[in-house]
């Protein structure tokens, strides 16, 4: 298992605020990793840096042995990193099929779609995320859970090696969470490397074999989630100082 994503000394400073502070970690090919931390820990900023939507102040990001630091988002996607957003984004006035087609029309997505055609590939992705019966309707009338599925479908259209999921469970009902969980487990079983964030520890605990903890932009610890959850700084970050006595 080689290293797929290697982040070294990554720092992002805004005026007066360091959102990501000297952060280093690795994700191996085929791994299923969680990034945990309370709200405002810098998880989304870290994702924005990896996916190219923000440029780091210093540090390097390597993907598959290649330096991708500061590359444009679309280039990074075409190298094989796809992401979803915490606040769902969709092409509101286009059918779900067309929503997915856009990803299939990217240079990397086209290579995958070449054999069957764009529409067929987009349909098969819609089927995989469980939205095929809604292929012709636009996302504005979809419930939140379906929008989350659509996001994952849009990411899959680009045929990613590494899937970055930013808070895939936020705002979902228990039922909807179950559906998304099953989908993510299936994708990982199909060979996609998954790296996901979550601010609710419980959600990630049963899902990922390895978790990385982040607090105030800094790397805290990593390991199996049960061990990470026992870490003093992690407990403090979630529950406040002195809480280790409670745990």
């Amino acid at each position: 298992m080689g290293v797929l994503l290697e982040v070294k000394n990554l720092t992002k400073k805004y005026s007066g605020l360091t959102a990501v502070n000297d952060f280093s970690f690795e994700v191996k090919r085929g791994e299923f990793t969680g990034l945990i931390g309370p709200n405002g820990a810098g998880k989304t900023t870290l994702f924005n840096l990896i996916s190219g939507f923000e440029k780091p102040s210093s540090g390097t990001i390597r993907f598959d042995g290649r330096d991708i630091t500061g590359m444009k988002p679309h280039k990074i996607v075409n190298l094989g990193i796809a992401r979803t957003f915490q606040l769902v984004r969709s092409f509101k006035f286009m059918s779900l099929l067309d929503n997915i087609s856009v990803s299939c029309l990217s240079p990397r997505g086209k290579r995958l779609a070449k054999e069957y055609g764009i529409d067929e590939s987009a349909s098969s992705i819609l089927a995989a995320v469980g939205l095929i019966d809604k292929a012709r309707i636009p996302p504005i009338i979809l419930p939140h859970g379906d929008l989350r599925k659509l996001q994952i479908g849009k990411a899959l259209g680009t045929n990613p090696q590494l899937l970055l999921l930013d808070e895939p469970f936020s705002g979902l009902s228990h039922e909807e969470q179950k559906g998304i969980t099953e989908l993510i487990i299936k994708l990982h079983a199909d060979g996609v490397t998954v790296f996901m964030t979550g601010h609710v520890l419980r959600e990630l605990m049963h899902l990922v074999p390895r978790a990385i903890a982040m607090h105030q932009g800094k790397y805290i610890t990593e390991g199996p989630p049960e061990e990470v959850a026992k870490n003093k700084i992690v407990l403090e970050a979630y529950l406040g100082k002195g809480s280790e006595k409670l745990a």
Partner: protein
Amino acid sequence: MKETKHDKISNFPSYLRDWIKTFRGKATIICLIGLGIIPFITNNSYIIGIFNTFMIYTIFAASWDFLAGYVGQVSFGHAIFLGIAGYTTAFSTRYLGSPWWIALLLGACFAVGFSLIVGVPALRLKGPYLALGTLAMSLILYQLFLMGSLGILWENAFPGTELFGTDGIGQVPPISDIPIVQYVAIFLIMCASMLIFTHLVKSKTGTIFKAIRDDETGTSASGINTTKYKILAFLISGFFAGIAGGLYALRFSGVNPGVFQPLYSFYAIIMAAVGGIASISGAALGAFIFVFLGEILRLLGDIPQLAVFGGFVEPIFIFSILLILIIRFAEQGVLKPMLERLQNMWDLLLGR
């Protein structure tokens, strides 16, 4: 790839057949036939002239609507392309003796060049800033072409030709001295332009354009180079606005700096909004209403008894009010509701 292409070709006639079967398809075909036979049933040069203007404005409005309605890039300086191409076409037919179609293509190419000059820096601007930036650029060009001092410099450099100055370029020969030929030429160019636009917005490239309109960040997260596609959209829109500008110069036998005025950019917006934003055939309906209502208002203005109301029947006065009413009460324009009403009536007539 080869297979999908083959599929498209074999699917094309059935796709066209399906379209003709719809009410919309039938209505479009009837309108086009009606428009096509007009010069054969009347030789009134005034009426033919109005229809020529209408068809030219249709291309212009569609080029604006393509960029704004389908790609989400709102330009308030579309007159730039109309003016540049108008000047190029007028200059090359009048002074270089080019045949009209070469001059027309040359004008469109110049417009494409300017769409690069306008588009590339404008791509860093978003939303209202893009609108303001393009508006400012059209004002710069208006002022440049108006300048008498530049005109004198030009005349000294190239004696016997005029470019800058308030007079513009006059005495441009028409497409043909036979009005029917000119009419048919404009008609065919309009049909071709509309067909290309319609096909484009329905194609896979059109899907990407609409994605950029709905969510640009999301489109780049889908692995699409949005800058590349926005430039492409600017080039296409500039080309067809340029075709409209060239035809304009040929139809009105000349151009003057006035074509660079924001008023012309505004015309494109009015026509597209009246017909319905993000609808290519809506642009045609908008142009139709704009040109014919404008002509009626002009005739009303000429009636001496109505002279007191002079300012109130000014086309721009009425159209500005119309635009406000449209964006307030009928956001989707008049084409869609009108088609729905007509279809209901049609179904009623057939007893469905």
